[in-house]
């Protein structure tokens, strides 16, 4: 949990610091940098949450299979993983759209 808190802190620092840095840069380049940062952060944060959720889902499914190998949990598990993953994929699409704007 401490690592998690550190990670959040790092993200927060980046988020707070980047407008300051962008403002210091001055001129027209600030927007591009912010867009690039947003593209990276979008998929990064989404992958973080998605990986956490998929890990829990896979762990629960594997536990179920270990307890009762004949249980048909594979299909519903893949369905659930796809539903979780689709949110990450939305972030990926946003990241693609944003990275297209960075010249």
């Amino acid at each position, binding site marked *: 949990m401490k690592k998690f808190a550190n990670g959040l802190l790092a993200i927060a620092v980046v988020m707070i610091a980047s407008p300051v840095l962008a403002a210091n840069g001055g001129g027209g380049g600030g927007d591009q940098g912010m867009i690039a940062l947003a593209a990276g952060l979008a998929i990064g944060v989404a992958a973080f949450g998605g990986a956490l959720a998929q890990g829990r889902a896979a762990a629960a499914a594997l536990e179920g299979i270990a307890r009762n190998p004949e249980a048909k949990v594979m*299909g519903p598990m893949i369905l659930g993983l*796809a539903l979780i993953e*689709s949110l990450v994929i939305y972030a990926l699409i946003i990241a693609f759209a944003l990275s297209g704007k960075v010249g």
Partner: protein
Amino acid sequence: MPHIFSFFEHWFGAFEPVAGAVLVSLLLFLFAVKAKSALAKVDDPRIPDQSLTIRNTAELIVGTLRDFVMDTMGHDGKKFIPFFGTMFVFIFANNLLGVIPGFNPPTSNINPNAGIAIIVFLLTHYLGLKAHGMSYLKHFMGPVAALAFLMIPIELVSHLVRPVSLSLRLYGNMTGDHAVLSIFTDLTKIGIPVIFLCVGIFISFVQAMVFTMLSMVYIGGAIAHDEH
């Protein structure tokens, strides 16, 4: 988004996904005709062929798809086997086109996916209305009549967002997978891209399965008679 070379984009421009989908459809059609003529020549359909033939392959595909649909939809699924089987085979073949160098999968464009997803959306509500009549609309009101004013907007949004999420999921997965493959092919020319080709085949299969399975869940939910 990295720009990925493809022959069809070179030749047809914006009609690239259409050309890809037509090519895939023609190949599937050819396979179906071949399998049909091979099946017609069989003396006793109960005896399987000795070696791997086109008939065995077709029987394996049809049998697996039948079990897949029947497992997910139950007894309602029998008349949907051709529809969902076609859908799975079409999406899977389209996804697999991306594994061949020089081709983009048609499903890495949003439009073919949106077409299939809109068909599923319309079919869901048509079949729901056909199965339940006007009482189908009661599904949107939730279990308690007093909360209907809350449930109707939520249900409406959740139904309208389904085709969007279906098509975006397939589009995002295929685009992302293809981008990863192209980037790694750029970085390491020999050997390493094979891993991503294998991942590409796996993702093609899983995404075709997920698309078909979610469509089955949606349509099954619309026509199901709830027992309570």
